[in-house]
């Protein structure tokens, strides 16, 4: 039976979501890591609340990047190990479609979850509540972009034994613009100045990677799978 492209897309997304919810520890570990890292900063620096507010955007964003990196490793790895990925590649649907579906599902369980818990971290870092909307919007755009960049990196490092360290080495330099604009947006939201420039730039980066990264990630998978 031949399955249409949209149907295949939703089947893959549903399968990914099912798999993640059957192993909830994989869902929670990056989030707990995110919380631990952000609470370690105030402990290590022993700051006044006002000084904490100055470094909060940077701390928040570095922690978000690191915890997203942790989960990137699982994007293709388990499917590549048991041969599912090869079957998907041979299924007659374009490999790009599979990559898009898997990356979207991955963002839903990691990026979106991180956006949802970010207010807790925001309160812990004494970010004022009026900045939460911008903080969450910029985190949503940033984590989606990072998922796309990460899909390229994860595709390139699938078969490697020390893939995880190499993955960070590859993805983090590419992600520096996200850190700069994400932290700038949050910073400006805290000081109640115009956030539009930074948020638009994040959105532009997000659209840019959404359009180009699927092809690059597909090419990466074709190189490592063949």
């Amino acid at each position, binding site marked *: 039976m031949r399955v249409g492209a949209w149907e295949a897309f939703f089947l893959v997304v549903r399968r990914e979501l099912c798999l993640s919810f059957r192993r909830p520890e994989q869902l929670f570990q990056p989030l707990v890591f995110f919380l631990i890292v952000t609470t370690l900063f105030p402990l290590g620096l022993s700051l006044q609340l006002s000084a904490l507010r100055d470094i909060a955007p940077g701390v928040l964003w570095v922690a978000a990047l690191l915890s997203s990196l942790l989960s990137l490793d699982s994007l293709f790895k388990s499917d590549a190990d048991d041969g599912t990925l090869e079957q998907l590649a041979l299924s007659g649907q374009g490999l790009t479609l599979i990559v898009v579906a898997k990356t979207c599902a991955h963002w839903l369980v990691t990026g979106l979850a991180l956006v949802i818990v970010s207010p807790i971290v925001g309160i812990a870092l004494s970010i004022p509540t009026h900045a939460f909307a911008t903080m969450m919007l910029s985190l949503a755009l940033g984590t989606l972009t990072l998922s796309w960049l990460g899909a390229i990196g994860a595709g390139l490092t699938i078969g490697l034994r020390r893939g995880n360290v190499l993955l960070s080495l590859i993805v983090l330099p590419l992600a520096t613009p996200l850190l*700069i604009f994400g932290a700038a947006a949050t910073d400006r939201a805290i000081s109640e100045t115009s956030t539009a420039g930074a948020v638009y730039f994040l959105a532009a980066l997000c659209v840019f990677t959404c359009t180009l990264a699927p092809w690059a990630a597909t090419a990466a998978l074709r190189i490592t799978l063949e």
Partner: protein
Amino acid sequence: MWTWFYKLASPPYVYGVAAAFVPWLLGFAALAIGYGLVAGLGIAPADYQQGEAFRMIYVHVPGALLSLTVYTVMAVASGIALIWRIKVGHAVAAASAPIGASFAILALITGSLWGKPMWGTYWAWDPRLTSELILLFLYVGVMSLRSAFEDPLRGDRAAALLAVVGVVNVPIVHFSVVWWNSLHQGATIVKLGAPSMPGSMLWPLLSMWLGFMLFFGAVLCMRLQAEVLNRERQASWVREAIK
């Protein structure tokens, strides 16, 4: 008309061409760098603001320019190798990566040595220094990805793809770093004087840049010979060539 171009896909031909180019490139590089060093370090007048320290420019700026040029060469060679499956392209990319990383390190070291007398600190989060550092990280990523695979062809193609992805990202990183810097700190950094340089300062700089390009060409040809020999070690022409 295009046959000379097609020939470049053949490893034995490239090996021969590279070998023939090396002495010429090295000779002209020595001339250009020699003139640049003598004229730049000895003859050019000291800068009215920066004094003698400005002479660092004769190594720093060509090094920084070359680190970008070499990345472009690497990415173009990688693109050619990926699209047309030309093995020599991977050899060129593999040969240029360490050279480009060295130029980036040279630019960073001379930049921080220059920064000490000018800015009073070895490291400032100046946009150009920062994006140069990220460029170095990209080089390191490409080189380690290539060596991480046991199958050399797979490593070549993975590194080639990363180089192409990186070349799209380099301008974005650069402009976002500039933007970030303008947001955080204003005029704490003394910018190089805007007035154009007089000829006695400019010509040695151009000559150094030309010399660095020629030097890169020479080192690339030497490394390319080694790469091609190593990659084609099973081929019969290699046994002839190194007899």
